[in-house]
């Protein structure tokens, strides 16, 4: 049941009806309903995975309480409990996601969807409780609803327990501004997914699917379009998940902040799949950095590499994901090594904020990122060497077959996205969807929605990130 399907909206209407009528003054009732409907949603996608989700939820709920009790007694057992939680969570993730790599030919008993997302929620919870950053959750319904929250269970954003669970404890009355904002974000997400990602994907698919027939010109265009497709697909999904959450009265974590405006790779990672990168920063990068702090710069470089390679292989056990991590780690280390010199240079020449300094940096970052995504896309080393050797054969006439499918509407949609992002990045005060004038707000929303119906690919395809 994908968010861009009719079934989802029938399901969602059925969830909302009691949620905002008979249950509206009763947060406990709302949470029970949320848990039941979340389990239904998850079970509908794959009912065989549901017992595993429920089992790990109960175990981590008990671990949280145990860790808090042992922390109060200061016995040192808290650390043991936290570590057993980590071993269990990582073990479950490894068994269901990476078994085939560790033991060639072995397949896990079942394919558990959303596992990379819900195990991260659980792991973060035991660490936060251990560090005393939050109290253990006493209400198992609230905890279960946090882990299984249906708008985000399949593909994120990865919410933090300390931010999300307090929202469950509050009553959610129908807040019309929040609901309207939720719908705006859903429609914007639909636009990104249907008018951009699904419309332009034919071109990179055609070129990279048969790379041996294409020249460098077509490969460059395919790489640019693929970067835009990945962004529109995943940001489109995230907008819809955040919007659906907002309609139900929740503030879900943001996932993207105009990543193609980043001026270096390190900034790019603070703007792309932010709920994952900030999770890895807090729970892997910082602990590693703290542990390696005696090793100076080298400790930092080592922590950075481990961090970004983990982000790569988090997506799955494929060469492309590992190489993608290594590719990014090279540029992150370079950025860290040169940071002091860069800052001195910027200060000396008063470059900060100047467009002629920002633009070339953004272009170079985009090229690095787009190359990284081409690496990400490859399934094997031979795929990658085929692309590189094909590029060595030189430029030529552009391959136009898939371009006709993208057409004017695809190009117009990309320009529309570019305009919105320019406006948001530079803080221009031109507003459409967020105008103070009600008529302009409503008209913009209606026009955007009509445009999605008119220009979108309405075949209801799935999202790239569902496979992770």
């Amino acid at each position: 049941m994908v968010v861009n399907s009719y079934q989802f909206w029938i399901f969602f209407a059925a969830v909302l009806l009691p949620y905002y009528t008979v249950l509206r003054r009763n947060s406990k009732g709302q949470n029970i309903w949320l848990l039941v409907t979340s389990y239904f949603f998850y079970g509908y996608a794959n009912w065989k995975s549901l017992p595993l989700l429920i089992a790990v939820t109960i175990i981590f709920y008990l671990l949280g309480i145990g860790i808090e009790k042992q922390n109060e007694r200061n016995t040192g057992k808290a650390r043991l409990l936290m570590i057993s939680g980590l071993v269990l969570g990582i073990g479950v993730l490894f068994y269901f996601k990476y078994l085939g790599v560790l033991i060639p030919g072995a397949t896990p008993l079942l394919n558990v969807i959303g596992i990379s997302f819900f195990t991260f929620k659980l792991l973060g919870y035991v660490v936060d409780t251990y560090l005393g950053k939050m109290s253990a959750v006493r209400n198992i319904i609230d905890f279960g609803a946090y882990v299984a929250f249906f708008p985000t269970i399949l593909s994120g954003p990865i919410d933090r327990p300390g931010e999300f669970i307090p929202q469950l404890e509050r009553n959610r009355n129908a807040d019309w501004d929040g609901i309207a904002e939720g719908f705006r974000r859903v429609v914007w997400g639909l636009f990104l997914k249907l008018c951009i990602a699904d419309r332009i994907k034919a071109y990179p698919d055609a070129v990279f699917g048969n790379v041996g027939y294409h020249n460098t010109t077509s490969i460059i265009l395919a790489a640019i379009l693929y970067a835009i497709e990945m962004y529109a697909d995943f940001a489109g999904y995230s907008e819809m998940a955040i919007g659906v959450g907002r309609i139900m009265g929740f503030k879900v974590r943001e996932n993207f902040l105009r990543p193609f405006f980043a001026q270096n790779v390190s900034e790019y990672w603070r703007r792309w799949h932010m709920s994952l990168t900030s999770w890895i920063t807090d729970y892997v990068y910082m602990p590693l950095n703290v542990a390696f702090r005696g090793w100076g710069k080298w400790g930092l470089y080592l922590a950075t590499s481990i961090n970004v390679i983990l982000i790569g292989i988090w997506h799955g056990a494929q060469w492309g994901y590992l190489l993608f991590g290594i590719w990014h780690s090279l540029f992150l280390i370079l950025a860290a090594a040169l940071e002091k010199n860069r800052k001195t240079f910027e200060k000396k020449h008063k470059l900060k904020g100047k467009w002629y300094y920002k633009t070339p940096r953004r272009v170079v970052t985009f090229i690095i990122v787009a190359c990284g995504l081409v690496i990400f896309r490859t399934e094997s080393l031979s795929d990658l060497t085929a692309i590189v050797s094909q590029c060595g054969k030189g430029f030529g006439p552009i391959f136009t077959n898939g371009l006709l499918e993208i057409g004017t509407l695809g190009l117009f949609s990309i320009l529309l996205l570019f305009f919105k992002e320019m406006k948001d990045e530079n803080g221009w005060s031109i507003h459409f969807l967020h105008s103070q004038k009600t008529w302009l707000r409503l008209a913009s929303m209606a026009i955007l929605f009509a445009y999605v119906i008119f220009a979108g690919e309405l075949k209801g395809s799935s999202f790239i990130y569902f496979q992770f």
Partner: protein
Amino acid sequence: MERNEVLARVQDIFRDVLDDDEIVLSDATTADDIDEWDSLSHIQLIVAIEKAFKVKFTSKEILSWKNIGELIDCLMTRTA
């Protein structure tokens, strides 16, 4: 050493490491309040504080601080 003396010394370390003489710390200060204080400089700050006060924090202590106040409390127990 008095608590406010510790805070003043930590403030000097922050000014030195982050190269900004206008930084003023209080118990409630967090990384959100100081631009230059990011995950990279965080580690440099901790190393500098450990050196200046001749202490060695545990990972759990470092990771659990929510603001400057908690860092100072931890330093007070170590230097007492």
